[in-house]
């Protein structure tokens, strides 16, 4: 971009007039563009300015801000690597130095522990220290089923007993307390003319 601007400046110089130009003098890396010398200049000509030899005239490049974008990307990288790098290091260590298990036949008379049925060391660790053994899970489910089955049986029996007692009327349920017949006052009906 600055090269374009420099080329435009040089073209304007050439167009404005060659009075007093001696071309670019390379003296210890300093180039002098623009018109040199003390000869009278035409109006609208450029002022002699010294520039360094490597990049030329310093330009103020006007472009849209990248502050927010680069801040976002910096923060994104930071927070991803904050846990990403330790996790990656841990996984590399486990996979390289500990390694996966090998498949083998169950030896005679040996009952493997419940975590010894998995291959990857992390899975084995989770099965050993975090999760319950599958036998315990199985037994828990069976216990729940057993309790519910007994409850069902008792409820069915209760309904049957209630039905029978209501029907036959010879059980302790479905009794409604009536007052004693000795308390009944029959004086109103004791004589025929009341």
């Amino acid at each position, binding site marked *: 971009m600055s090269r374009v601007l420099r080329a435009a400046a040089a073209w304007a110089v050439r167009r404005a007039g060659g009075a007093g130009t001696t071309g670019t003098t390379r003296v210890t890396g300093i180039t002098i563009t623009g018109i040199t010398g003390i000869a009278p200049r035409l109006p609208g000509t450029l002022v002699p300015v010294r520039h360094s030899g490597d990049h030329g005239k310093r330009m103020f490049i006007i472009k849209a801000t990248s502050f927010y974008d680069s801040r976002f990307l910096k923060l994104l990288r930071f927070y991803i690597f904050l846990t990403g790098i330790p996790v990656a290091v841990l996984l590399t260590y486990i996979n*390289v*130095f*500990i*390694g*996966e*298990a*090998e*498949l*083998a*036949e*169950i030896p005679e008379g040996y009952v*493997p522990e419940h975590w*010894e*049925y*998995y*291959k990857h060391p992390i899975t*084995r660790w989770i099965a050993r220290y975090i999760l319950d053994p599958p036998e315990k899970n*199985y037994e828990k*489910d*069976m216990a729940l*089923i*057993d309790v*519910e*089955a007994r409850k069902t049986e008792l409820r069915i029996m209760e309904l049957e007993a209630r039905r029978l007692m209501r029907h036959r009327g010879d059980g302790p349920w479905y009794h409604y307390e009536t007052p004693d017949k000795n308390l009944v006052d029959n004086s109103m009906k004791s004589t025929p003319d009341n």
Partner: protein
Amino acid sequence: MPEDHDWEAYKVPPTRTPVSERTTSVPNPVNYFQTAFNYVFDAPVTFVREWIERLQNKNKFYYYHQKFRRVPDLSECLEGDYLCYYEAEAQWRRDRMVDQQIVEIVQERMAACRQREGPNQFQNCAKEMELLAQVTKAYQDRYGELGYHGNARTCLMKQKHRMMEERKAAQEKEQS
């Protein structure tokens, strides 16, 4: 690292590529590519892998395939014995998973045979085709149209219906 298949379980027949005879004195450029590949990729990777395996061989540990005891089937359970139902159901699901894996393995063998033989697949893969047909028919008979909510009870009912129809067909054949 994913491990290779057990090569002993299914012996791949030996390749029948013909031995070519040299007709020119120009050396085969494929050999140069092969040695280049060997030195650039194969040797370093093999070296690293062997180093890792030497490290890991110092403390080895093993994993096993779990063997489940056989429990009474659903047809041997008393009615209302919910615990027996639960165990039979679990066993049926395990058996169904095993059968699904068997079907997958036979399908893989068929596909491998097809890929190997290429244009003469219909002649040379007859055994694998036959095995696949038998296995899929058996799977379809047992677990076929039970659907997603199929369980041991629906499977038993399907078997019962099949036996009833077989008996009916046998009786009709006897009468006619």
